[in-house]
């Protein structure tokens, strides 16, 4: 607990890297738990805002760890955090790449994907819930989040348009 935030954040991300399924969004609830609840390095609202910025910026979603790290660890953390989050899984994949497994219809692949899908779904929804709680803007915040959720799930509106709508709503309320 007394450890430097940059390195304890990096160590936590490295651990998550190995168990990450279904992309960065499934890891957000745990990063939130670690950064906001356990250590209090950021407020829930700051955390949710940084996630929003990462979605609006060009680049892989995992770079949200750079935005988060920078806020309490400066440039060092902004570079160390994404590296810590990418490197362990990358080494595993690099090792796997030498196995040269072929065949997209191999049954083990299909079953593994089907087996992991429900876990991914649960964790992605958890991400949304945790972030909505973090916004801490009371009922209007939840209403806005729910409206955007429905719009993005059931219409073909561009995500950036929905973020812009959120920005406008925030300004006006």
């Amino acid at each position, binding site marked *: 607990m007394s450890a430097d935030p940059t390195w304890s954040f990096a160590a936590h991300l490295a651990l998550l890297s190995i168990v990450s399924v279904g992309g960065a*969004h499934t890891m957000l609830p745990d990063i939130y738990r670690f950064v906001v609840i356990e250590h209090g390095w950021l407020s829930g609202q700051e955390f949710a805002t940084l996630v929003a910025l990462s979605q609006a910026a060009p680049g892989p979603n995992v770079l949200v760890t750079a935005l988060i790290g920078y806020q309490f660890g400066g440039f060092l953390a902004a570079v160390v955090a994404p590296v810590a989050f990418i490197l362990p899984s990358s080494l595993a994949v690099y090792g796997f790449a030498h196995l040269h497994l072929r065949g997209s219809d191999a049954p083990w692949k299909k079953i593994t994907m089907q087996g992991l899908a429900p876990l991914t779904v649960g964790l992605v929804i958890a991400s949304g819930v945790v972030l909505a709680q973090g916004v801490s803007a009371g009922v209007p915040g939840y209403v806005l989040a729910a409206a955007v959720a429905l719009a993005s799930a059931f219409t073909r509106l561009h995500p950036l348009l929905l973020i812009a709508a959120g920005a406008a709503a925030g300004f006006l309320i």
Partner: protein
Amino acid sequence: MENAAPALRPPRAITCRSLAWGFARIGLSGIGGVLPYAHHTIVEDEGWLTDREFTEVLSIAQILPGPNIANVAILLGTRFRGTAGAAAALGGLFVPPLLVFLVLAVLYREFAEVAWLRRVFVGIAAAAAGLILGMGLKLAVALPRQAWAVAIAIVALGAAVVARIPLPWVVVGLAPLGIFCAWKWRA
């Protein structure tokens, strides 16, 4: 390298530099997810893979731990140019967008205290939460209508939101269980 359709780039023409440049374009073009751009660049623009090969690589990338697009970069880089290729592809994918993110991080820090911007930030934060929820809903609709799948999704949600169990435990517990169920009740 196996035989490929004539439209494909011969593997010798795929240099580390072209891997880095190709993945840099993928990394920099992705707003709200890079996979559609990845397909466009890898299959249509560069001709590194056929559609079928791309699907194959992607399906492996999705099963392995780590961001899908990073895994695609490593698998392709290794396949065409070994270790150096993997490093080039991964570097191309992450370094240019990281520079953009660093600028963004500084700007956010600089302006976070401005009162009207704070309100705007609250709005976009709520919208971002909504976008992720919406993605979860879309994925949920695509799940197989089987009791075990619904149960695992609900347990994962509860573990992360209500019980706040550290994620490694959730994955170590539920991933093997999910795969077992998918095998046991396979269609």
